[in-house]
């Protein structure tokens, strides 16, 4: 199967029809939701936080941050950035609660030091491994991304990036770029060795150089630290759980959607 990054750059690949299809596909929604929940659990946030979502797309990952109930330390406030205006247009149509920025993570992030409690990135970082032009290389883009991510997190803040590395070499290239930016880094794999393997890069800014302890202490978490290999754990679908939680919050009027005069209108953002 060919990888989308090999076909087109992300802003062209995620055009209007693809962004719509992506967002309404129920299988995709289920997978993105379960990976976001996994990433969220690795962040261990205990109080309503400011979270950055890199490659936020149409807001499938972000909306899960908004719907974390009070009893679980939420809800969180998020800022999402994405390189595809079409994906962001779908996010607007869906009236997600996070703020959105049109930006290329490979150019570095424009936030002041210590802005975010935490960051997530769900299914986006592999895109940074393709140079967008002849003037830049993948390592340069990864460096700008991780260097600026490190700065924009508060000390002790965590970031979890779920991504689809092409191969071992690419996985290592991404993790190395994070480590060189100063992060303590650990790689975690759900379903290692299967077709559905999910790779999470777990990062801490300025805390410990070794995050192995953090990921190992967690239930159902497998640590792939290149020293040992164990059997993979299964990620349960939490879709029903999310839907139930969301419905409950909405019933209580706890998730208040932005009231905008654009409600339901088709969006086109022409920059």
């Amino acid at each position, binding site marked *: 199967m060919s990888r989308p990054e090999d076909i087109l750059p992300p802003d062209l690949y995620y055009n209007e029809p693809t962004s719509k299809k992506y967002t309404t596909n129920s299988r995709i929604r289920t997978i993105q939701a379960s990976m976001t929940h996994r990433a969220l659990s690795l962040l261990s946030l205990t*109080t*309503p*936080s*400011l979270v950055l979502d890199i490659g936020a797309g149409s807001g499938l990952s972000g909306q899960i941050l908004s719907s974390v109930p*009070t*009893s679980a*330390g*939420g*809800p*969180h*406030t998020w*800022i999402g*950035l994405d*390189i595809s205006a079409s994906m*962001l247009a779908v996010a*607007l149509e869906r009236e997600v*609660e996070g*703020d*959105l*920025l*049109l*930006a*290329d993570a490979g*150019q*570095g*992030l*424009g*936030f*002041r030091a*210590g*802005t975010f*409690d935490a960051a997530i990135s769900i299914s986006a970082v592999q895109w940074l491994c393709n140079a967008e*032009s002849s*003037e*830049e290389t993948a390592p340069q883009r990864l460096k*700008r991304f991780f260097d600026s991510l490190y700065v924009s997190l*508060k000390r002790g803040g965590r970031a979890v990036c779920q991504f689809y590395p092409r191969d071992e070499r690419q996985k290592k290239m991404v993790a190395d770029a994070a480590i060189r930016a100063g992060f303590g880094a650990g790689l975690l794999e759900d379903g290692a060795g299967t077709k559905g393997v999910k790779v999470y890069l777990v990062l801490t800014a300025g805390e410990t150089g070794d995050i192995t302890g953090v990921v190992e202490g967690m239930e159902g978490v497998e640590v792939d630290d290149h020293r040992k290999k164990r059997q993979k754990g299964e990620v349960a679908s939490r879709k029903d759980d999310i839907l139930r939680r969301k419905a409950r919050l909405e019933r*209580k*009027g*706890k*998730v*208040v959607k*932005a*009231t*905008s005069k*654009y409600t339901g209108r088709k*969006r086109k*953002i*022409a*920059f």
Partner: protein
Amino acid sequence: MKLLTLNFLTCARKACKPLPTSFPLHPADATLATTETAFSPAFLRNILPRLDWPALKGLCDELGLPGVGDEAPGPEALFEDGELPESDEDIVGEIEAGKRPTKLAHDLHQLLVETVMLEGKLVCASCGHEYAVKEGIANFLLPSHLV
């Protein structure tokens, strides 16, 4: 885009990053709107120490909004002793029992979370670069020679 977010955005150009004038960005031709959003005093308590208060004050002046005080309030100013009034029963986020949010907490929620910039641009005082804002989304894509 929430005014809160404006308190964290800097110019993304490499040449500007080290310069103090690359923050804050200054709104121009701004259209503001209000969006109703769940009130989370717990979130405000978390974020308050991280706000750049002079930048927030400057922003209010530039946008012609009722100003905030000169001194940054501490997190304790967001709560007072007392029963949660009925009007606050739908707040989200954990708060201490026996405490209720103050007027300041409500005011900050309205200013930082519910006031949004829909259209206009954000201008860097250092390099003059203008970041367009459309439908609340700021465009931070840079031409490659400025990265």
